[in-house]
């Protein structure tokens, strides 16, 4: 008696069948391709004011309801992605056992029925009898790197061989890679965060300000299982995530491309020197970060992202060394407008003024000042006054990039190092524990299609029979991909055997 299927079983079977169809995959791909367009036509994640300027109030409300302003994170879009992943997973699980069976199936010599269904076969007569024919066939197999399975019975010699069995895995490598990317992205959303930190030169922080909170912490806090580590300020400010260590900005600077006349206004590099300190203020390490080269510590990565001015008096750092010497010299810090006595040269140096963009004419030695957009430090220039017991000895300019020689009458050289403390570095901070899963998926996604498209599982069979004193050789083959290419090889093999 057949067992009655329970309702759960029936539903489960239906669901499985639904998700194991390739039709569903194609339909989902079409839907995803179409709805993805919406978010490229409507700008995403802009401020409400901007949207109201562009659309009417009802439209804004409608779009808001449909989630069109942050479309790729709406529940319905995520569900579409989820369905695609579920579809892929079920398809993989559904088909893989069958593939595995094909892959591990032992090679067998072919029988007449098997021969009948193969489209690619050829019968030839080889001169010189059975032994000669057998020898020839084995030789050709060896030449084409097929390792044949031999079977022999009275008047019948059979060979079977296959190549590229593993190419059948290509499609699974590809599909699993996409599942991995999805899992990695979810891991990032659950356990990672995106944050920012605007760090003035010379300052340190042990928290970063969140753009989005890790979902895991939110869920745990909502369920009352664990308290979220996030610190909420009472004034409704941006929530902060404690790092468990300090990050300090030692300096920030912009380098500019140098033209024939001096620096052009085009930035060539933004960089900050950051230090990591433990909570007990012990230094762990320094790193100079720039765009495309971030700092990572304990799973959190700091990217150079922006910068800006802060309203504070600056400090100029100068280097002083004796003339005609290769010594590194000493570094002196002078607050803007103030003076400092330097014992090694027995002089007092006063920082008179600062300009963001000064340049020296290399022939006349004259210093000219230019306007720079947004007060950017294109070529910072400081005017110095050198005093001896409150009496001015001389005045001079030092600058970051000097095309000429600064006026230095005495037996030491002063050079510009850095103008410190008037800017902050804007850091993008992320923690994404899922990124390695995603990258593993990326690597597999690069390899999988290559195996799937360019590999093929090829099988080759040969039967050598004695008929009327002559050796009759039957050759047959099959390939699951690139049949045209296999046909060429097959014809070549036939020709070589008949020789």
């Amino acid at each position: 008696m057949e067992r009655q299927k329970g309702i759960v079983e029936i539903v489960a079977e239906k669901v499985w069948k639904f998700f194991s169809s390739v039709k569903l995959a194609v339909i989902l791909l079409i839907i995803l391709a179409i709805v993805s367009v919406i978010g490229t036509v409507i700008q995403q994640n802009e401020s409400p004011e901007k949207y109201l300027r562009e659309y009417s109030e009802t439209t804004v409300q409608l779009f808001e309801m449909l989630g069109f302003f942050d479309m790729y994170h709406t529940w319905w879009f995520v569900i579409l992605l989820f369905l695609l992943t579920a579809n892929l997973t079920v398809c993989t699980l559904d088909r893989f056992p069958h593939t595995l069976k094909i892959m591990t199936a032992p090679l067998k010599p072919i029988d007449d029925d098997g021969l009948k269904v193969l489209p690619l076969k050829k019968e030839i007569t080889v001169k010189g009898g059975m032994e000669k024919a057998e020898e020839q066939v084995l030789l050709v197999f060896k030449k084409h790197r097929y390792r044949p399975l031999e079977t022999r019975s009275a008047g019948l010699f059979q060979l079977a061989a296959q190549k590229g069995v593993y190419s059948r895995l290509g499609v699974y490598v590809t599909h699993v890679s996409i599942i991995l990317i999805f899992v990695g992205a979810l891991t990032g959303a659950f356990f990672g965060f995106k944050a920012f930190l605007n760090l003035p030169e010379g300052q340190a922080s042990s928290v970063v300000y969140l753009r989005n909170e890790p979902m895991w912490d939110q869920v745990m806090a909502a369920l009352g299982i664990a308290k979220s580590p996030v610190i909420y300020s009472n004034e409704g400010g941006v929530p902060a995530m404690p790092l468990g260590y300090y990050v300090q900005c030692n300096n920030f600077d912009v380098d500019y491309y140098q033209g024939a006349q001096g620096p052009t206004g085009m930035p060539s590099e933004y960089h900050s020197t950051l230090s990591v300190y433990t909570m007990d203020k012990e230094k762990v390490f320094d790193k100079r970060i720039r765009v495309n080269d971030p700092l990572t510590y304990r799973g959190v990565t700091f990217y150079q992202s922006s910068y800006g001015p802060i309203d504070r008096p600056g400090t100029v750092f100068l280097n002083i060394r004796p003339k005609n010497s290769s010594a590194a010299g000493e570094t002196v810090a002078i607050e803007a407008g103030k003076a400092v006595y330097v014992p090694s040269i027995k002089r007092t140096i006063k920082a008179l003024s600062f300009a963001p963009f000064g340049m020296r004419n290399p022939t006349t030695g004259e210093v000219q000042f230019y306007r720079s957009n947004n007060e950017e430090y294109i070529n910072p220039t400081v005017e110095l006054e050198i005093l001896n017991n409150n009496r001015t000895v001389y005045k001079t300019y030092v600058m970051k990039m000097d095309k000429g020689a600064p006026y230095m009458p005495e037996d030491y050289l002063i050079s510009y190092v850095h103008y410190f403390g008037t800017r902050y570095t804007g850091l993008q901070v992320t923690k994404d524990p899922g990124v390695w899963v995603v990258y593993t998926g990326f690597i597999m996604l690069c390899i999988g299609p290559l195996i799937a498209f360019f590999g093929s599982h090829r099988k080759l069979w040969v039967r050598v029979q004695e008929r009327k004193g002559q050796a009759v050789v039957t050759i047959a083959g099959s390939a699951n991909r690139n049949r045209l290419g296999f046909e060429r090889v097959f014809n070549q093999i036939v020709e070589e055997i008949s020789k």
Partner: protein
Amino acid sequence: MESSLLFNIATLAYLVAMVLYISFLAFRKEGIGLTATVVTAAGFIVQTIALFGRWWESYQMGADIGRVPLSNLYESLVFFTWSTVMIYLIVEYKYKARAFGAFVMPVAFLALAFINVAGISSDITPLVPALKSNWLFYHVLISFLGYAAFGVAFAISMVYLLMNTDDRGKSMNLFSGIGALFLLAVAGYFLTSLSPQWKTAFWLGLGVLVLAWFIYLIVNGANNRPQVFLFWAGCVTLAVVLLLAMGVDFVYLITFKNMASGESFKKHLFEGTFVSHSLPVVVLSWVFTAGLFWFIWSQGMKLKSLLQSYMPGLDLLDDVTYRMIAIGWPLLTGGIITGAVWANSAWGTYWSWDPKETWSLITWFVYAIYLHARYVRGWKGTQMAVISAVGFLAVIFTYLGVNLVLSGLHSYGGLAE
């Protein structure tokens, strides 16, 4: 700069080769065909030298400026034509089918012509800090090799669609097509003038309509050949009109607006034709478009009979298209991945759903549909050629449309840049 001169020689060679390939079809002389191949190969060699020359020149300008010539619109377009021609030469050699040249060389030549008519600057400019990454180099290299493979697939699909049409259908087809075009154009001008909201609505609506048509063609194209032929004529018209319109823009802006060549023409796109301030010019542009559409539609069958004796069988065309996509899709995948890795190293986000990324993913979906339809559902022929054509339209949109159309759609889009 010597490399610019060499690039111009290569452009000229491709133009000559294009004319030669087309005359080869018309006059059926083997000699012309052979000359076309030789000219193409010579142009390719010159362009290869020019590419390395530009690389070297960038280092001559300063050690910090030197870089692989793959980092701006100009360089990427040049590289696209270079790879298209390279893939074409391989296909010609392998399949011994010279007639493809008449379709592939226009793609290469149009891309180079686009550089000139769109006024894209060929200056070697220093890179902004975010672009200083090896990932960028791999990203552009891989992406454009992929685009080139898709370009060749597109050209062959277009041949397929033409050769597969037995009957262009009733003239009613064409007239309803032209009617729809005019209706959409009038609606477009009216709605976009109302408010930004209606402008967005119009573009969304247009997108939905076009997509619906594509899906219809993919699902039912095999049963409605005349409709597919209309699509074919539409694709050819679109390519010619876009290029001509940009050519007119170029002349108009340089002569009447005194804009310097190399200045960004993006904000003034189609001001000489479709979005001109003068109504007669706008009407004339549309009438010309309709006329061209009619011409291409009515001459298609003649072209087909001309090609008949030169073209390999339909099955081979289908197979070559598939092979090109089987090469292009892994490359596109690699391009998207290297782009994501680069974004992660620069900004800490490997995917941010910006329009460019999203459109590359849409393109990826379209070709994924192609591959699944072929492998698993066993589709062949017309439908496959339509998907391949739609895929390449998505490629073009990813590459140019996102910058030209989408950023112009938002009143605040221009300010943010």
